């Protein structure tokens, strides 16, 4: 077992060696531009891109023509939301999203508010899921788009996508989802789920960084987005720019591997995740954040009360994890996702996200359990709050000095 152990697979995943192997020729001998229609170099590249479209389509249940390659999920989110807003602005200007979305969605919505959009940010329940009745109540005749993420990047909860899509469609709005954390990890089928637009990226599923997809439905209904970049009119006019052929080949291969291995892999990961989680929540005053029924198989977000996340991560120096503590950021604000679950700031500061992945082994999880326990105990020995808790002092009754 090599140290440090990588348990931050929601941030990014390592490239699968099989994906790398598929990509390599497209950096060297097969370097052609997929838009070069008049020679063999172009044809080879175009063929590779078409094959990747098939691989992606098989994973999410769509046709090749519904796939727009982008530079990643952030671009896909921007293109989907801004593109729909501009394309359908005669129909209405109202967009519905949720407070726990990724910044690529939230900040895009904020940007559109300056351009005249009305945006409803749905609050989530304490388990991280949105309230379907609140969604229903928020729908208006002006609503053109509902955009709710599939699986959350911090806590892993999976939203009731089919039900959300049905509500959007009942009111004549389109449904978009940022499925970056879900595609390749759990079954996602754009038709079964009722998805009209979907953003995701390769590097969260063992593919390369710098390539992603915006799925845009072509039938029932035919959805169009206004291009956000001017240029050569690639990707059926919706996304100009020379295609990243090696990246797209890698994305295709990554999708194929996920499709073939997902069932077993999800079982394996959820077993390891449950092992980690149950061992760590046996410690006093530790809590799982988010719904534990409806969630991705590979994420555990746990708050260890009375220790601060960044300090804790320093003690877990053999583990690469992330924390909802924002001690590293200038704002000193803890995770907005955790705060939106109604978590108090101190619990948000005390959270650690463990993100398991394809290359995580049981031995690593066993090590992570021991390492984390030791770190939490060490930090609690240093913590005045832990001492006060142990003495039975109610911390909420203390007047904390000047902040």
């Amino acid at each position, binding site marked *: 077992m090599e140290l440090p152990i990588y348990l931050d697979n929601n941030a990014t995943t390592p490239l699968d060696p099989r994906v790398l192997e598929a990509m390599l020729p497209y950096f060297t001998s097969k370097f052609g531009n997929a838009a070069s229609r008049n020679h063999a170099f172009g044809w080879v590249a175009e063929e590779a891109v078409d094959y990747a479209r098939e691989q992606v389509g098989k994973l999410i249940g769509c046709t090749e023509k519904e796939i727009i390659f982008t530079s990643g999920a952030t671009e896909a989110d921007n293109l989907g939301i801004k593109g729909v807003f501009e394309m359908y602005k005669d129909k209405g200007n109202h967009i519905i999203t949720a407070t726990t979305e990724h910044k690529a969605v939230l900040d895009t919505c904020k940007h559109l508010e300056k351009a005249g959009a009305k945006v409803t940010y749905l609050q989530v329940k304490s388990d991280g899921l949105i309230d379907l009745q609140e969604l229903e109540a928020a729908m208006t005749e002006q609503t053109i788009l509902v955009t709710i993420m599939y699986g959350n990047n911090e806590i892993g909860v999976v939203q009731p996508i089919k039900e959300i899509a049905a509500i959007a469609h009942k009111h004549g709005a389109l449904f978009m989802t940022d499925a970056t954390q879900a595609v390749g990890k759990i079954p996602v089928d754009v038709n079964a789920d009722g998805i009209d637009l979907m953003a995701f990226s390769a590097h969260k599923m063992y593919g390369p960084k710098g390539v992603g997809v915006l799925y845009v439905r072509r039938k029932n209904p035919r959805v169009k987005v206004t291009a956000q970049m001017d240029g050569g009119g690639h990707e059926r006019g919706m996304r100009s720019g020379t295609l990243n052929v090696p990246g797209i080949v890698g994305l295709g291969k990554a999708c194929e591997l996920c499709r073939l291995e997902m069932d077993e892999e999800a079982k394996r990961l959820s077993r390891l995740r449950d092992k980690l989680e149950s061992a760590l929540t046996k410690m006093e005053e530790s809590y799982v954040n988010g719904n534990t029924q409806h969630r991705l198989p590979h994420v555990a977000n746990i708050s260890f009360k*009375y*220790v*601060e*996340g*960044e*300090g804790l991560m*320093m003690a877990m120096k053999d583990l690469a994890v992330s924390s909802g*503590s*924002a*001690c*590293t*950021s*200038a704002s*000193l604000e*803890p995770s907005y996702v955790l705060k939106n679950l109604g978590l*108090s*700031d*101190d619990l948000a*500061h005390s959270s650690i996200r463990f993100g398991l992945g394809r290359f995580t082994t049981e031995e690593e999880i066993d090590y992570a359990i021991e390492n984390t326990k030791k770190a939490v105990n060490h930090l609690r*020995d*240093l*913590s*005045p*709050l*832990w*001492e006060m808790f142990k003495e039975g002092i109610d*911390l909420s009754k203390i007047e*904390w*000095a*000047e*902040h």
Partner: protein
Amino acid sequence: MAYSEKVMEHYTNPRNVGTLNKDSKSVGTGLVGAPECGDVMRLQIEVDENNIITDAKFKTFGCGSAIASSSLATEWLKGKTVDEALTIDNMDIVEELALPPVKIHCSVLAEDAIKSAINDYRVKNGMEPIELAKSHH
């Protein structure tokens, strides 16, 4: 963000972790920060009849830089007179630990903790509290 060697050293081997009897007249206790800000420091000093700090202890809830700042503060306090202790400035801590700008608040908190512990000691022993000039966050 990488931590400086000195922060790592204090974090890994924190000096003077512990608790003094807060009810003793010779002990001053400073509790500063707030859980919702992600930083709470408790710093205690024990002062002898010659106004010399004979012992100092801390416990800190916070990031590595906060723990290192308070550990360093206790190290500096021991053997100083109370008046000398008042001259410890947060920028001394910043310099010693090579704290980056986003971590300066940790050193400010440590300075506040020192002053707050001294004030607790002064008030317990019938002296006026000194004015805390700096505000933070």
